[in-house]
């Protein structure tokens, strides 16, 4: 909780003035009974209606000033709490953006959604209520304690004992329920996760008729959440009755010891007892508000912990910030070079073993190999989504680790395996690589990606709406739009990660032809399962179980690389392969 203190910094003024206003209002409120006493003691006693009306006006004025003061407090509290929430969300989002994929996988998207919405809401609510309510209670408690001491020092021991007991109770309930509130947020994550799965996997769930078992899953998760919440509420529901019990026992003690003291004639009067009881009641009323706040604060600190967890997660791939990279863009330096690269995810076996190759500027390179052989892993190293275990990946003759991300990734257009579009229009999606892309740029890219045909047939053309993920387009259409998205910015290097899988062969061929014409100096890397897609490539890399088992042209590899030959023959007959 305290770690998030820095977010209050910009709202120092609000956090100080707000409670002060509230305090001022409380003081005015305390004056009202005095004025009323005057009305009765002076006005009624003297039968002076003029005085009564005058004092009445004073009371109304006190109310009006109190109202203004309260409004200022509410205004400041709303501003500070919403401001803190907004800043939290914004920094959380920024921080999430800076994390590498490994960390995001660990935290999980549904949990991040809950944290950036629900958890931030809890903290926000706590700030608002804190400013509104927290100042009044200590003021009244301390005030009453001091007043009690001035009345009778001995009797004030009862006050201190009661205050200490209440403090201990608050602390106990708070510390006992904090872990439970953390658990509750985690259970909320789980509900988010199951909901998300059921939305994204809805087809499969229906196809397998698993609605019932999915419902049981959520029933269990919600039951679990309800039980934990109810269990913790058993404890937190104790807070206000316990405070009530403590203060009333204190009142009993005050009356009893007061009676003894009055009886002994040791300086106490029955009026003093009434005053002490009244002060104790004041404390009770103030603490009851605090008790409700305590639950809120406990909830908020559980949420704050979860927010902090995100802030404390550091990206595993760290960017070098300096900008003056001297690159080598001559004809002789390879555009991309792998030197003795080893790679592993976490601590497992090597995913890539001793990979070395060079890709020259403007070349078209194919990467082929069995499922799970490391093709995608290999290309993920080029834009430095992951760092190598050993060896070097060089881009324009410079190690990718030396680049600022913008300079490296800005040159690379990637078409991912999973063809995902973002909600918005086609135009919005096409501007991902280059936000200043003109209509001509976009149309040209769409034409190259063989997507213009169907896009131009849509009622709104490139301004047609795209649903989340691109669900309103077929798999093949989505893939072509993703390709167009990647080439709109004229990248120096285009990486196609199995991006033709949903295309028929005619489209595939036409697309490759168009890409060739699109730009001459673009280096193209094609990861694929189809040997027909890459048979004309300048260079083909054959991967098998993380090792590079062949590199060369189609004809060379077909004659010399057993793995490649096998792959080709699984798709084409010998004559077709040699065509």
């Amino acid at each position, binding site marked *: 909780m305290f770690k998030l203190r820095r977010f209050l910094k910009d709202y120092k003024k609000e956090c100080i003035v707000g409670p002060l206003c509230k305090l001022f209002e409380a003081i005015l409120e305390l004056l009202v009974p005095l004025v009323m006493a005057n009305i009765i003691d002076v006005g009624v006693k003297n039968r002076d209606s003029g005085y009564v009306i005058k004092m009445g006006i004073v009371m109304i004025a006190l109310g009006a000033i109190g109202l203004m003061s309260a409004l200022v407090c509410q205004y400041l509290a709303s501003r500070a709490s919403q401001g803190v929430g907004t800043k939290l969300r914004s920094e959380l989002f920024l921080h999430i953006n800076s994390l590498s994929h490994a960390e995001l996988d660990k935290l999980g998207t549904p949990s991040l959604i809950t944290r950036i919405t629900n958890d931030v809401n809890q903290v926000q609510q706590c700030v608002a209520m804190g400013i509104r309510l927290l100042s009044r209670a200590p003021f009244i408690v301390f005030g009453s304690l001091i007043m009690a001491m001035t009345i009778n020092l001995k009797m004030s021991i009862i006050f201190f004992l009661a205050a200490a007991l209440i403090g201990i109770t608050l602390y106990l309930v708070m510390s006992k329920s904090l872990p439970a509130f953390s658990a509750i947020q985690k259970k909320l994550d789980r509900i988010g*996760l199951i909901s998300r799965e059921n939305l994204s996997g809805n087809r499969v769930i229906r196809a397998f008729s698993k609605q019932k078992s999915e419902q049981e899953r959520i029933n269990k998760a919600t039951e679990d959440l309800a039980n934990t919440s109810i269990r913790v509420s058993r404890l937190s529901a104790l807070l206000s009755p316990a405070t009530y019990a403590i203060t009333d026992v204190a009142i009993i003690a005050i009356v009893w010891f007061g009676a003894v003291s009055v009886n002994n004639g040791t300086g106490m009067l*029955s009026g003093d007892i009434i005053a002490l009881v009244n002060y104790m009641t004041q404390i009770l009323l103030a603490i009851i508000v605090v008790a409700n706040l305590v639950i809120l604060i406990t909830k908020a600190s559980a949420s704050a912990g979860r927010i902090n967890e995100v802030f404390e997660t550091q990206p595993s791939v760290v960017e070098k910030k300096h900008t003056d990279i001297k690159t080598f863009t001559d004809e002789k330096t390879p555009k991309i070079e792998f030197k003795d690269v080893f790679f592993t995810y976490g601590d497992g076996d090597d995913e890539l073993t001793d990979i070395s190759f060079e890709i020259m500027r403007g070349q078209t390179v194919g990467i082929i190999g069995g499922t799970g052989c490391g093709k995608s892993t290999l290309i993920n190293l080029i834009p430095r989504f992951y760092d190598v275990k050993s060896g070097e990946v060089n881009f324009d003759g410079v190690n990718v680790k030396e680049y600022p991300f913008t300079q490296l990734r800005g040159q690379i257009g990637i078409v991912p395996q999973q063809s995902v579009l973002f909600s918005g229009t086609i135009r919005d999606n096409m501007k991902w690589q280059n936000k200043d892309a003109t209509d001509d740029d976009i149309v040209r890219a769409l034409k190259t990606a063989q997507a213009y045909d169907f896009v131009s047939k849509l009622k709104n053309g490139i301004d047609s709406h795209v649903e989340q993920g691109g669900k309103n387009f077929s798999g093949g259409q989505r893939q072509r739009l993703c390709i167009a998205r990647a080439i709109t910015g004229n990248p120096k290097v285009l990486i196609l990660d199995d991006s033709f899988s949903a295309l028929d*062969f005619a489209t595939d061929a036409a697309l490759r032809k168009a890409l060739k014409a699109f730009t001459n100096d673009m280096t193209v890397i094609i990861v694929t399962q189809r040997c027909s897609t890459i048979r004309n490539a300048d260079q083909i890399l054959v991967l098998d179980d993380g090792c590079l088992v062949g590199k060369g042209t189609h004809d060379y590899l077909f004659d010399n690389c057993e793995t490649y030959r096998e792959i080709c023959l699984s798709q084409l007959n010998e004559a077709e392969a040699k065509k």
Partner: protein
Amino acid sequence: MKNKSTVSKVLKKIKPYSGYLFLSIISAVISVSLTLYIPVLVGDAIDNIIDAGNVNFKNVGILLGYIAIGVVGVTVFQWIMNYFTNVISYKTVRDLRREVFAKFNNVPLSYIDSHSHGDLISRVINDIDAVGDGLTQMFLQLFSGVVTIAGTLIFMLMIDWRIALTVVILTPLSLFVASFIGKLSHRRFTRQQILQGDISSYVEEHVGNQRIVKSFLYEQRAFEAFEKYNNELYDVGFKAQFAGALANPSTRFVNAMVYAAVGIFGALTAIVGTLTIGQISCFLTYANQYTKPFNEVTGVLTQLQTGIAAAARVFEVLEAADEQPDPENPVTLENCKGNIKIDDVSFSYTKDKPLIQHFTLDVKSGNHVAIVGPTGCGKTTFINLLMRFYETDSGKITIDGVDIREMTRDGLRKQFGMVLQDSWLFSGTIMENLKYGNENATEEEVIKAAKAAYAHGFIRRMPNGYNTVISEGGGNLSRGQIQLLCIARAMLTNPAILILDEATSSIDTLTEIRVQKAFARIMEGRTSFVVAHRLSTIKESDVILVMKDGNIIEQGSHDELLAKNGFYSVLYNSQFAKTS
């Protein structure tokens, strides 16, 4: 009024817990009356303490004893009230979540396809949470509030009915003020919840697809777009909070005015001589007590309003139209043969864009049907209709002569085993995922299927083998591996009809051929549909349907179609075309 109907809908959801509600109210009555009574006892006790040597300890002791009993009562019943209100709201929240979730699986698939998932998740998580908060606050304040009002009213009436009447008539003023402010801010609270959903869906989309965001260096722009929502939420949230927070000081002001009015009126009456000073002070105390609950209710007004706005969004989902219900007397297929007839079917996703038109097809039991065609020609749509994910606009589909609408959806889908284009796994172990379609499968059967799908090898290499937990959507696996797992999963279901929609598009061809062989063994004598782009994989099919623009334009075996020299042969030969 819309506001009111939302509240009454929420109250209906509480009905099952009316027992708790009843106990809660009883506890509120007991604990509040005791809290009102204890000060009287304290007063009486003090009256027995007069001065030195003149204290009636016996009476004081008895009265203090009563107070002690009263305190125990208040503590216990207040706890019960607090606890039961929490129970009611948590259980209602649980029920609401379940209901919304059940709704996800009851609406037509098009609903899921066309709504933002992040926003729907936000309704399940944030909105329902807000409803729960609102409920707790409402009950806590309402119960003790109503009892306090009733109690003080009785006490006041006993003293002087005229002044009591003044208080009763004046106090609701504060309610008018509160409800006026409530109406003013309602729109903002609604907007606040909507923005909350927008933020969720933006985060869901952009955090869920960070890899793409990163590769396009889109971080900064994503942040800017997020900030736009975030700042709007600040703006609306601030206004909603402030407007809602206006209510409490305003009602307190109104009540302070009432208090002043009572004081002045009482004082003036006393001057005339019909009221004693003691009665005035009594009155003022009760006037204070009486107005307090009104203040407390407005104190939680923001939470109540957030709750109402959130509840409206929850009910929006709950009230979405369900799928056409299953027939009352469904036909069940025993020993499905797999004769499928598609009779003059037309379908479109949107009215103005006809997709499948007058589609007719007759598939005999045991046929292997391949469907090819350019992307977007309706292959996947055809499967959506066959499995009744979407309803046909006209025409009918029959299996073994039975219209698929005469069966239950479950009964229909049980006949199919399918591997879809969008392969999907859920978070859990590999074993759980493989058993998804057939929970009773033994471990041997699972391993056998995994071997047949050529997934056994890489599963074994994973850290915990079959017990390795895969993250949501299969994040830590390659697409090819996910597809292999989906195939193994389908193999375990042992269906009458098999559908493979681009099931092997990301699998290398060597593995694919082996997997196909395994499928061929399983599919012997069963009907199957295969959608594929790699024509090499479908050469052996009995019938190849060539689709274009929602219609079958060619139909026949591989050799027949090649001989025809039509669209299929163009498609087939394009894989040998040179690009340069």
